[in-house]
């Protein structure tokens, strides 16, 4: 039990919370504009693989992070094309997107490294640069929504697209930008996971962290600071369960494995009842179709 309550656990918790925090920030930008991004897990995973391959090839985790960001932005663009321009169902498209991303990353990964072959460990970044990076992103998103006209516009598009349209804002363009930005942050989150705490890629390495991030966004009421706080709560539970798995107890280790997800779920139930959902979340916008 001594190992459970230690500085090391807290540090591990922070490291494991960073990717979730970044993905949650991305989802906030997405969803404040009215685009429900259930493809978040898939975008994270794509960014993770992109970041891993580039880090492996160049030997620089920073370039890996950049690659994750770009891959995420690209997936965000694809998603925006489908749900914003072609107005496909955001729920179905998002889930399908994640499923395809899981399959595609597994396939690409196996093309590069055969099954059974041990994929190389890549150079890892320390905790503090990544913490700094995440804090910059939090501050950026906070500033965007609290202090800039662009943030106000994104919120307006998510709350009442017809109003924004009548005022002359381009709803489709704003949703495209928000979806790409959200994808980029999710991809960065994935890249942080493999280039930071893990240092390697395995199939479905994100392990549902994208879904957790989506839940945290609801829990945080679409506000960046509480979302990041929630992400670190999740990270702490994740770190704790890793350590609990190592201690010999009567409890099956699967219970500990489920712990972070259970805590997230409980937090969600407790908080989500009075959360404020963007009114137009999930609705494609067509002018004149009120």
């Amino acid at each position, binding site marked *: 039990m001594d190992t459970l309550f230690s500085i090391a656990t807290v540090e591990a918790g922070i490291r494991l919370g960073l990717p979730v925090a970044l993905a949650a920030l991305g989802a906030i930008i997405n969803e404040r504009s009215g685009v429900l991004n259930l493809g978040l897990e898939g975008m994270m995973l794509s960014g993770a693989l992109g970041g891993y391959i580039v880090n492996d090839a160049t030997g620089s985790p920073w370039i890996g992070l950049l690659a994750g960001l770009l891959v995420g932005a690209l997936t965000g663009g694809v998603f925006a094309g489908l749900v914003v321009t072609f107005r496909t169902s955001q729920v179905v498209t998002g889930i399908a997107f994640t499923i395809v991303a899981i399959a595609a990353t597994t396939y690409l990964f196996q093309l590069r490294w055969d099954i059974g072959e041990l994929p190389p460990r890549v150079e890892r970044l320390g905790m503090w640069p990544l913490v700094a990076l995440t804090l910059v992103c939090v501050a950026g998103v906070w500033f965007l929504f609290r202090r800039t*006209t662009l943030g*106000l516009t994104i919120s307006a598009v998510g709350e009442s697209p017809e109003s924004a349209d009548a*005022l002359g804002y381009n709803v489709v363009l704003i949703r495209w930008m928000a979806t790409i930005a959200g994808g980029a942050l999710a991809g960065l989150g994935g890249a942080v996971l493999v280039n930071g705490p893990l240092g390697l890629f395995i199939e479905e390495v994100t392990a549902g962290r994208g879904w957790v991030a989506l839940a945290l966004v609801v829990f945080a009421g679409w506000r960046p600071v509480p979302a990041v706080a929630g992400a670190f709560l999740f990270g702490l539970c994740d770190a704790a369960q890793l350590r609990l798995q190592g201690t010999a107890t009567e409890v099956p280790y699967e219970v500990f494995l489920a712990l972070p997800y259970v805590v997230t779920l409980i937090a969600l139930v407790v908080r989500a009842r009075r959360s404020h959902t963007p009114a137009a979340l999930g609705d494609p916008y067509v002018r004149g179709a009120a």
Partner: protein
Amino acid sequence: MRSVSRRFGETVALDGVDFEARPGEIHALLGANGAGKTTLMRILAGLDRPDTGTVEVFGQRIENFEPGPIRALGVALVQQHFTLVPTLTASENLVLARPEGALLPPGRTAGVRVQKLVEQFGLEVRDGVPASQLSVGERQRLEILRALDADAKILLLDEPTAVLTDVEAERLLGVARALADQGRALVVITHRLAEVEACDRVTVLREGIEAISDGAVDGYTRADLASAMIGTDTSGTITARTSRRTQAAPVCLRVRDVSLGRVSSLSLDVGEGEIVGIAGVDGNGQSELEAALSGRSAAESGEVSISGEPIAPGDPRSRRGQGLAYIPSDRYSWGLIGPMDLADNLELGRVLPIRPNRPARHKAARPSLDHWDVRTAGPHARTSSLSGGNAQKLVLARELDEHPSAVLACYPTRGLDPEAADTVATRLVAAAEAGCAVLWIGAELDELLAVSDRIEVLYDGTLFGPYLPPFDRAAIGLAMAGDAADRARSATGGEAGPP
């Protein structure tokens, strides 16, 4: 705007309309529902585009019908459905409409901006609370302030007084006059004669055509305007009944002091075998009346009874049990389930716990479909594949087959082609002649004139009438535009309006 036309599918919304607004004047745009008033203004604001015709703003021809560039020319539309972002405060809504650079102004500066506008134009608005928590009047004032903040030279108000109390409406017209005096051009869409009288010029639209084009308000009497609005063409599409009931019949449907939303303390009797037509322009309480009588909403107060038996408020099922047939105004929201087949829709409301198999159900449905002349591929067809007329006949088949004692028919012919409309009307008349009490809420005066034994006019939640056959078209038209209400008010000396 020159010879502007716009079609939506089969419907011609505007047919070669000319329209002009001049600085310093208030131009009233008068017309009944569906006359094309709102479409015309949406085009002028860039929210819609004309199929043919041209629009010029200060001599500049509009090619690109987008809201942004047209706003920049100084045109602002205050729509009936407000376009404030409900979660944002007054000052945030103003900043959204006219940002001051990339960064948001600090709270205090934004507040000062609202305060200045409020003082300059005398339109009271609270700041600091989300727009969704403001009263309707406040939201409208904020919309107008937002337009003025952008220095709108041409201000279009779409039925601005529809949601206001009398006192607020009067104040608003005063503000409109002050704005016109500053050299702005104002357009006020309305269907109320009293408001037209506060304007300088008037254009009346009827079914997409100008009935009066850009006339001086002083040149017309109320009767002129009312008849231009409702038309004088009495040859409706619906076959007029040859005989009308003249003797009082025993009361079947009794409505006593029902209040709900806009409807206040409304009482009405419909006798057995009688058709009572409720005339009026939409939005005067029709939807509340429909909701209260069908049981979809519980009335705030009052009582409804059928054949002397009072029925519980807000209980559609008990109403059906007591013999009320309901033909809803929106067939697909409240009448039919589109993805289900015809036979299933016929059974709605009387489905047995254990149902016969599908072929048996389809077989059972067939006679009813034939009798009601629902033209379709068969009972297995999806209901959403039906045309409007056949869908409505399917509703009639379900509702009238059970020999109801009363029928609530809400806009039963809306959206139907003339032949189907005539069939539906004939069937309802037949139901009345078989002894059913029919309450017919309609927007088209012609059809009500053709079928009703008695007409009441619903204006601002209150009934005016009765009007008995032979009907005085002009008098009913005046009542629909609020003349009867204005008279009643001045007769009681109640200038101050409600407390």
